């Protein structure tokens, strides 16, 4: 067990692009940091800010949000609706004392497995540099977050 801080990151992916990009990265045997645990949504437009807050409150150190490139949304333009929320959410997180560097938006097409993997790796390092957020464990007497030392296999 190393002493190196392993950030826990929740990633929200779009069924049509980034989820497939992650899939592609996998099938192409490209490695990306196991710190990111992905949740599939049908569209980034499904991203409810509640999910992001829940992830942080439950102990995530970072949140990755990904969607189709602007103009490429499978549902025409729903990724823009996520974009609008994302911008406002960042402002809120800043006020709550969560560094904007802990949340990242990545546009990735289904073909961009390598780019997506690269972005994940960069983001993991970025969050690692910030250190643990420890939100869930910090509340008075509330339960401690269990963070495993080594990343386990994440069911898709």
């Amino acid at each position: 067990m190393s002493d190196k801080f392993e950030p826990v990151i929740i990633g929200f992916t779009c069924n049509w692009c980034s989820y497939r990009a992650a899939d592609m990265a996998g099938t192409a045997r490209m490695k990306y940091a196991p710190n990111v645990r992905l949740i599939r949504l049908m569209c980034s437009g499904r991203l409810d800010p509640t999910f992001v807050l829940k992830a942080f409150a439950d102990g995530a150190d970072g949140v990755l949000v990904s969607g189709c490139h602007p103009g490429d949304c499978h549902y025409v333009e729903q990724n823009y609706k996520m974009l609008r929320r994302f911008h406002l959410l960042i402002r809120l997180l800043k006020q709550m004392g969560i560094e904007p560097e802990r949340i990242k938006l990545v546009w990735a097409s289904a073909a961009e497995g390598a780019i997506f993997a690269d972005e994940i790796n960069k983001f993991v390092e970025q969050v690692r540099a910030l250190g643990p957020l420890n939100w869930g464990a910090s509340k008075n007497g509330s339960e401690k977050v269990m963070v495993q030392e080594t990343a386990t296999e994440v069911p898709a």
Partner: protein
Amino acid sequence: MTTNGKPKFAMYWAASCGGCEISVLNTNEKILDVDANFDVVFWPVAMDAKYKDVEAMEDKSILLTLFNGGIRNDENEHIAKLLRQKSQILVAFGSCASEGCVPALANLSNVKEIVDTAYTTISTDNPNGIRPQPNYTVPEGELHIPTLYPTLRTLDQVVDVDYYMPGCPPESQQISAVLDLVIQVIQGKAQLPPKGAVIGAGVSTVCDECKRKRNEKSIKEFKRIQEIMLDPEICILEQGVICSGPATRSGCGALCPTAGAPCIGCYGPAENTLDYGSRLLSAVASVIDSNDPKEIDKILDGIPDPAGMFYRFNLAGSLLKASKPAWDK
């Protein structure tokens, strides 16, 4: 202690403003119904309360306790636990107990900042930088004042809560309706709602009760209420002024929008909603009329205080509960 066979009733305030109590008093004649149907054992505002008597009671001997106010210090917490122990039904009464209300905005700052601010204001004469001390020795002896908790918490973050009654304060007619229901339950004419339910409010949101005309929404610019003359007939949010009505539980009768002011969200989140602020944030942001990041940012400059705007009444009860500076050492 009275033993007239009537079920026992208690009402208590913790860290609150007293508006809940006033709203109960504003039910007027309903108070008499309470008196007729209950043995009021503990209600500081209306009667001489016997706290020690409560302590001496058997567990679960109070049928109904309405608890208002948030949990700011150990004393609040202590009595919350006591009343939980003594009560069959504990209701988080009002916004403070349910979700923290305005005082929970203090959870955006840490206690040191709060104290420093209070004792360095422009009118404060404090050349020696004095701060109140939990323990302080005066010539005659030692004095104690409680230490503040780092954050304000809701009642259900401290004890198990049976029902929630939202509102700042809960509207009198809603209080009357709830009291009627409980009286009917006692008389065997009605059933209690399932544990954990929100009572004395609707299941929809304030728009449901708002008479203003609504259209499809598309916002190009957010405005502050002092900047425009609002059309009294049309949805306030459509006019660019953020109104919390769409996300706020119904039950008040849309009082503020009817009076020309935006809803500020005192009735809390709608049914089964995990986080009030993110619901409202998501809704408001979704209808911004731009796909260009720069323009979106410019439009968002019209919401200079998202935390205050979206968590005005709900910070303690939100997912994040408090800002990082509030709890970070």
